[in-house]
């Protein structure tokens, strides 16, 4: 079974990926905008905050800057789509590829170590908590704050306009909603959240690396779809809770798979396991229906 450290580790990473899942919920679900920019904005958040931290900036300020950088990246993707009429998926791939160069430029080298630096976690280690519990507590607070803010936003006039933009753009325009701006705002917010996740990930892992974004989109989607399978997203708050639950369950499943020696899986199998889990999460709900149909027909 899982060791205590591995369990906390799964929660820590799960909470961070919960933020990624929020972002992917915004783009994929709310706006119906398949956005792969996240593979670039995750390391972008890490890069921006790492560079600022090693240059002596306040880590929270560095995290804020990471969010803004992520939002800018999202805005670029959405503008390519809305104003230049490039297919949304392609627009996001273009930004993602461009960000690889941008991230290398920002960092000046492929990776930056943060082990000896002050991060957002540093003051929390003075509290009466075990070393491996600190990130879980802090990231839980961050996740809850973001969840509440995002929930309130989605229930606001602007948030409702954004939901209508994704669900029925023609109707949204007829109601006086500037759908183009809504897409830009939504994709920017989405990537701001993912950059926040990247920034926190780098600070808790002790390094920012230019390749750390590979597959973030798949893990985020796995969390989103897994969460939706557990908690049907009938309302905004349920959908947001599903993101967090899905991300934690996903990390727990990965940790279990890697810890179960008898299966013989190793760390390098991670991406394969992820792909299999996502496939299962997509296929299983349908399979349930067809099994049901099989029985009802007889």
């Amino acid at each position, binding site marked *: 079974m899982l060791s205590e450290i591995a369990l906390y580790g799964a929660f820590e990473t799960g909470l961070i990926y919960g933020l990624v899942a929020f972002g992917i919920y915004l783009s994929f679900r709310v706006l119906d905008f398949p956005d792969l920019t996240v593979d670039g904005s995750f390391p972008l958040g890490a890069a921006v905050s790492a560079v600022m931290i090693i240059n002596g900036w306040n880590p929270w300020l560095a995290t804020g800057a990471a969010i803004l950088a992520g939002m800018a990246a999202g805005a670029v993707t959405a503008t390519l789509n809305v104003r230049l009429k490039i297919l949304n998926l392609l627009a996001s791939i273009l930004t993602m590829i461009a960000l690889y160069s941008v991230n290398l430029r920002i960092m000046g080298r492929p990776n930056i170590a943060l082990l000896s630096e002050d991060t957002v976690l540093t003051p929390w280690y003075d509290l009466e908590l075990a070393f491996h519990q600190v990130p879980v507590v802090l990231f839980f607070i961050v996740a809850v704050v973001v969840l509440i803010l995002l929930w309130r936003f989605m*229930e606001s006039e602007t948030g409702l306009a954004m939901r209508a933009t994704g669900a029925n753009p023609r109707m949204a325009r007829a109601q006086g*909603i500037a759908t183009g701006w809504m897409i830009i705002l939504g994709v920017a917010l989405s990537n701001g959240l993912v950059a926040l996740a990247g920034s926190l990930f780098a600070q808790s892992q002790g390094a920012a690396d230019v390749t750390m974004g590979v597959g973030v989109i798949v893990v985020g989607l796995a969390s989103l779809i897994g969460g939706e399978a557990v908690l049907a997203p009938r309302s905004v708050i349920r959908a947001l809770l599903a993101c967090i639950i899905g991300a934690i369950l996903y990390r727990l499943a990965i940790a279990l798979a890697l810890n179960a020696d008898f299966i013989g899986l190793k760390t390098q199998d991670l991406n394969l396991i992820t792909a299999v889990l996502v496939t299962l999460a997509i296929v299983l709900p349908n399979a349930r229906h067809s099994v049901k149909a099989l029985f009802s027909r007889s």
Partner: protein
Amino acid sequence: MITVKDLRLTFGKGTPLENPALRGLSLTVNQGEFVTVIGSNGAGKSTLLNALSGEVLVDSGRIEVDGVDVTRLSTHKRAGRVSRVFQDPLAGTCENLTIEENMSLAIKRGMRRGLGSAVKTRYRDRFREGLATLNLGLENRLGDKMGLLSGGQRQAVSLLMASLNPSSILLLDEHTAALDPRTAEFVLDLTKRIIHDQKKTALMVTHSMKQALEVGERTVMLHQGQVVFDIAGQEREGLTVSDLLKLFEKQRGIEVSDDSLLLG
């Protein structure tokens, strides 16, 4: 009031599929007037409504709503002046949003949207009151998803949404065509009542010549992107569908088949 002057619009310009949809269409609809619009397929009825709402921008010509030039404005910038009900009952509402969320979207049509709560308690009474006039029992289902409603119910709510806010003009694009006859009649009665009660300036496109003559106070026929005739008042009283067909043939000097003009 709507003033449309010499509208021209060609789809697919410079391609083999070049299609002139509007060829110098001019029309003036007075304040509070209810006009029905008929015409065969491709006559330019839907294009006219799309041009008025801003979904398509015309090549040339001028569109004024209440004296304000809106020719170059995009749909969302006109939405405060123009409300619209689509032919497809699913098009005018969001099925994933609740009834009250849909109506909250409509109540802010053409206004700034901020970060305040979208569905406000003070709106709910207005929504309930409005829904109660439909006699569909929807006033107790504010929190239900729009997707749970039937096509007719959704079209009725769309109409209500179009009338929540004072807009200058109401555009109806064959909004009863996709409904079964009984529901269509119900929605049509509701349309008449709303237009009458709110003294709206309305343009209703219909495929049914019978409906075009029975509803509203003026009938306009489009053909090949132009107005071919425009009748109102005594001239329109007592006119039958076959009179209308004869009138059309006389005007254009062409044979009209039942295929090109659907009788209702």
